[in-house]
């Protein structure tokens, strides 16, 4: 088994474990931390998929920004010492069943389709090429993503301002 496979297995196991922890712990703060771990694992997988820049971006944006924002939100929301609603079993069973059904269908689809592998050898994963594409084909999405971020922040501000108006 090559080193590559070994790393892949370790990374995927850690990501999946962290993901399971992220959705199963009773306390939300633990979920947040396990989410950060899972994102780290995913960054590793990106690395494996030979797109290093993205791995780094993943760490910076996701783990650094979004996860932290989530933890901030957890701090503002009801302190964790308040009683957590006990687990509602029928709901859990139901959701497990549905997700299992979802995965089963996906599995069936993925395994049955003959994936055509790409023939070109020179795989240019470099950042320069990525930059050329971002400002080539994806110029419009690139601009629009900035508008989206601008709108999101403005909206968040608005929601915050609603606080005074509301009181």
């Amino acid at each position, binding site marked *: 088994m090559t080193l590559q496979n070994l790393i892949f297995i370790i990374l995927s196991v850690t990501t999946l474990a962290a993901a399971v922890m992220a959705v199963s712990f009773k306390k939300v703060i633990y979920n947040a931390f396990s989410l950060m771990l899972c994102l780290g694992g995913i960054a590793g997988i*990106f690395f494996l998929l030979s797109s290093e820049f993205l791995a780094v971006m993943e760490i910076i944006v996701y783990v650094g920004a979004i996860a932290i924002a989530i933890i901030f939100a957890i701090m503002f929301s009801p302190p964790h010492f308040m009683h957590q609603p006990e687990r509602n079993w029928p709901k859990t069973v139901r959701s*497990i069943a549905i997700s299992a059904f979802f995965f089963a269908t996906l599995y069936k689809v993925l395994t049955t389709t003959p994936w055509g592998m790409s023939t070109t050898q020179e795989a240019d994963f470099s950042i320069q090429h990525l930059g050329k594409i971002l400002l080539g084909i994806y110029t419009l999405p690139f601009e629009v993503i900035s508008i989206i*971020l601008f709108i999101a922040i403005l909206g968040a501000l608005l929601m915050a301002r609603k606080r005074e108006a509301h009181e």
Partner: protein
Amino acid sequence: MSESLIAYLLLSGTLAAIGVYGFLERRNLIGILISIELILNAASINFLAFNKFVSPDKGLGQAIVLLIIGLAAAEATLALSIILVLYRGMTSINIEEANHLKG
């Protein structure tokens, strides 16, 4: 298990499934937000996997994943701000209490 396309797809499939489970089961809004992030990441793994094994132009997938990360960020900020407004309104972020609009 060799490091082939199917492996990554299955990995992202399980991640997505876990995200879906989290979405349906978590009783806490932030928990739901976390599971959305999971699903989005699963999709980005998918994209990168296809980018590496299938796509002729290797930069495409990466650009897409980059955009996805941007999107996820925007969505998360917005979701969190609304969640906090909701928290101020009903002092709990339990999704099951947010069911006044029905019928």
